[in-house]
C-alpha cells in the first residue's frame, strides 16, 4: 500500500534520515521504533507532506506522494496524527470531530462515523461541547485520533501517540489503538514505547540515528536479544 524507497531527509548539513526503505502492506500495522532523534518524525513528516525529502521516493497505491501539498492527502485516504496532536484547541470537541469529516470522501455517513468514534472514546461523547484545548493530554490525543478516524482513512499515520502521557493514560490510548486495529485499518505508527507497540504491530522497523537498523515481524523482534537490550531495556529508552 505504501512503499518508501531510499528516502533521505537533510536539514542543511544535518542528515535526519539516511536512505530509509520500508513497506506497509494493506491491512497491517507497522511500527517504527527508535529513540529521540532517530529520524522517526522526519520520516512521518515526509509521508504527511510536512517535510520535503532531499532524495528518494514515497509511493502510495502506485502514485508518488512527493511534492503533493499536505491538505490533499486526506482526500486520498491518508490521515496523520502528528506529534503535538495538531488539534484545534480553540474549538469544541464536536467541532474538532466535524472538521475531521470536512474532506469529500468523508461527507457521507459522517454521523455514523461520529457514533463509532464516540463508541471508541466514550469520554469524547461526554465532553463534546468542551473546548479541546482545556482537556488533559490524553483526552486531546483521543480528539486527535478520533478526528483522524472521522475522515474514514485507509491509512492512519500516528506520530508518538503516547508521548508525554501518564502511564495509565498510555494504556488507555493503546487499548483504543488495539480496537482500531481490529477494524482492519492499515496503521503506520512511530513510537518510543516499544513494548506496548510490539504487542499490537504485525511488523516493526528499528531506527537508530537516521538509519533503519533492523526489521522483522513484531513477534520475532520482541524476542530478539539485541532488540531487547537496545529498545526494551527500559532505562535505555532516552538517549538524548
Amino acid at each position, binding site marked *: 500500500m505504501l512503499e518508501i524507497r531510499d528516502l533521505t531527509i537533510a536539514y542543511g548539513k544535518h542528515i535526519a534520515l539516511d536512505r530509509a526503505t520500508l513497506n506497509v502492506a494493506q491491512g497491517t500495522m507497522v511500527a517504527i521504533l527508535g529513540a529521540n532523534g532517530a529520524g522517526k518524525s522526519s520520516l512521518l513528516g515526509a509521508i504527511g507532506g510536512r517535510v520535503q525529502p532531499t532524495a528518494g521516493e514515497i509511493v502510495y497505491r502506485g502514485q508518488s506522494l512527493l511534492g503533493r501539498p499536505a*491538505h490533499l492527502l486526506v482526500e486520498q485516504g491518508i490521515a496523520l496524527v502528528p506529534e503535538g496532536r495538531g488539534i484545534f484547541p*480553540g474549538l469544541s470537541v464536536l467541532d474538532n470531530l*466535524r472538521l475531521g469529516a470536512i474532506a469529500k470522501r468523508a461527507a457521507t455517513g459522517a454521523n455514523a462515523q461520529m457514533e463509532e468514534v464516540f463508541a471508541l472514546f466514550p469520554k469524547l461523547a461526554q465532553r463534546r461541547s468542551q473546548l479541546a484545548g482545556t482537556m488533559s493530554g490524553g483526552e486531546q490525543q483521543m480528539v486527535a485520533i478520533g478526528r483522524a478516524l472521522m*475522515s474514514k482513512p485507509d491509512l492512519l499515520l500516528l506520530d508518538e501517540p503516547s508521548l508525554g502521557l501518564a502511564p495509565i493514560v498510555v494504556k488507555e490510548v493503546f487499548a483504543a489503538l488495539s480496537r482500531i486495529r481490529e477494524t482492519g485499518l492499515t496503521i503506520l505508527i512511530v513510537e518510543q514505547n516499544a513494548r506496548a507497540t510490539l504487542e499490537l504491530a504485525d511488523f516493526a522497523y528499528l531506527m537508530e540515528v537516521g538509519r533503519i537498523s533492523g526489521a522483522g515481524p513484531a513477534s520475532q523482534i520482541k524476542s530478539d536479544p539485541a532488540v531487547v537490550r537496545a529498545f526494551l531495556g527500559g532505562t535505555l529508552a532516552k538517549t538524548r
Partner: protein
Amino acid sequence: MLSTTLILGLVLGGTYALLALGLTLQYGIARIMNLAYGEFTLIAAFLVVASFQHLGVPPLVALPFVTIAGYGFGWLLYQVMMRPLVARSGSSGRLEVDSILATFGLLFLIQGVLLVGFGANFTSISYLDRGIDVLGVSVALNRLIAFAICVLAGGALVVALQKTRWGLIMRAVALTPGSAPLVGIDVNRVARQGFAIGSALAATAGASISMYQTFSATGGVVFTMKALVIVIMGGVGNVPGALAAGLALGLLETFVATAIDPGLTLAATFAIFLLVLLWRPQGLFGART
C-alpha cells in the same frame, strides 16, 4: 435629548461596525493587516457616486454590483500581490510585517489613481435624505438604510460563521492555521476567500457611506483608522466583538459631539483606543490567544 443621541449614535455605529467587519475578517482569516482598507471603501464610494452622477444609476441598485466587484478585486489582489508574501513567510510572523508594508504602499497607489480619476475635491451626493421618524427622532433615510445593511450583513456573517460548515472551516483557519491541512483544508484558498469577503464588505461599507457622507480621495486613512480602532476594541478576528465595538464607538462619538463638542469626536475615539490598548489589549469582548 438622550434618545436622539442613542438613536443617531446607533445608526452611526452601524456603519462603523460594517466598516470594521471586513478588516477583522482580512486579518483574522488571511493574517493580512490591510492598511489600504480605507482606500477599498473609497473606490466603492467613488464608483457609486460616478455611476449615479453620470449614468443615473441609483446607489441602492449599484450597491450589490459594487459588493461583487469588491469580492473580485480582493480575490485578484490576494492572488497577485499577497500570495508571494504568504508563500515566502512560512509559519513565522513575517507575513504580518510584510503585509503591513505592502498594503501601506498600496494605499498610496490607490490614492494616486483616485486623485487622477476623481480629483482632490470633496464629493457628496444627495440621495434619499428625507427624514424618517424613529421613536420621535428624525433620522435621514439613507442613514437608516446603511444601518439596515450593516445589521443584515453583520448578522448573516455571524450566523454563517457559527452555524455552517463553511463557517467552521473559516474559524478553524482563523484559530489554528497550522492544523488545518491535517483535515484537508487548503489554507491558501480559505485565506484568499477571507480576504475577498473582507474586500466585499469594505466595498459595501463604502457604497453605504457614499449615500450620505462627504468624502475625498485622500480621506481613506480615516476609514482605516476607525476600522482598526474598532477591530482592536472588539478583539482582533472577533466578528461579534467588532459589531459591538462599532456600535459602541458610534454611540460614544455621538455622545461626545452633542454633550461636549463635535471637534472632540476623533480625540475621544483615540482616547478610548489608548485605554483599551493599555488595559485590555486582547479587546473588550473576550480573548483570542
